[in-house]
């Protein structure tokens, strides 16, 4: 299965700017489908970015976050060609992870 994560990290002078797009239905559990029945909740609960073995960003997400969410943040440190690990886990226990190279 193709990765559900797209990451783009660019190292600046003293910080690294990270953008990521994640493919996920993010069903809130409050929406009805075509059959009139509630679509069961299915959303990402924890999203983690790791750099150099250290967690640099954690997001606790819930049903209010949109489908295919996009996130942008920056952290101190990071340089060109470093690895940046991304992983998410959802309320059904499904997960995905990916490692991206930081660009200069």
């Amino acid at each position, binding site marked *: 299965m*193709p990765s559900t994560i797209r990451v783009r990290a660019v190292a600046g002078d003293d910080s690294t700017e990270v*953008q990521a797009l994640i493919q996920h239905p993010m069903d809130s559990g409050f929406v009805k489908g075509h059959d009139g029945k509630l679509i069961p909740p299915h959303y990402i609960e924890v999203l983690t970015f790791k750099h150099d073995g250290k967690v640099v960003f954690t997001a606790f997400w819930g049903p209010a976050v949109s489908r*295919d969410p996009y996130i942008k943040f920056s952290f101190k440190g990071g340089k060109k060609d470093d690895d940046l690990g991304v992983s998410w886990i959802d309320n059904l226990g499904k997960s995905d992870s990916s490692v991206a190279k930081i660009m200069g």
Partner: protein
Amino acid sequence: MRSGRLYRVGFAIAALLGFVSLARAAQAPNPAADQRAFQAYFRSRFPTVKLADFGNGPYAVNALMRKQWEEIMAFPPYDFALDAGKAAFAKPFANGRGYADCFPNKGIGIRQTFPYFDTKTGEVVTLDLAINRCRIANGEKPLPYQVGLMAAITAYMAETSRGKAFDIKIPDDPRALAAYEDGKRFFYARRGQLNFSCASCHVQAAGQRLRGDILAPALGILAAFPIYRSDWGSMGTIDRRFTSCNAQVRSVPFAPQDKTYRDLEYFLSYMSNGVPITGPGARP
């Protein structure tokens, strides 16, 4: 005297007949002239926009939207669909054959030749229809039009054709001309409770705002399909656009791939000859 009057009446009738036949000649379908006039209208309406840029729809005519779009394109929202489409295209059917066997050049870089007029069956064949006919011919169930895998596969096929200009031909066949005329009539005919034609928005009001949206010029409007529309939150094919446009003017949409929609696609694509494929696209 009497014969003189008769002569005059006869002359008048002859002149009238002559006039009628002249008027007929002027109204005879002339797609090439239509195309020149159509493109000239948009070129004079948006003099700074190059023909090739019309495939970018509203972004070609609105600088602010273009800037936002360029940022969005760092992460094209159709990227996931593109991956899914590529995988589906490469996956063989149960009988071992694949999509590539149904299309010239193994289906790569051919989007710009669709829709074409099939002189054997006497109808317009769109890419979506060809994909489903390929599936049926190989014993697979047809895909639903408008969304999902159909959008993903057409996205992949469009992506392989990027930069290739629309090259729609109208063969020397009265049925092809009739299909073109049918599409043209639909494009300019007002319909629905709001009494809008396609042209009301995409010719007359092209580049202007319709509430929060900038109306895309009709020239090159199909070059970006299928599109990821943020408003939809998913991918959509040309059928999805046609049916939802029709519903928005409060008319009853036709079924996807109805002859009317295929003829409309034929007309619109022919009008856009020379505009390169930019699909899959991202629209607000």
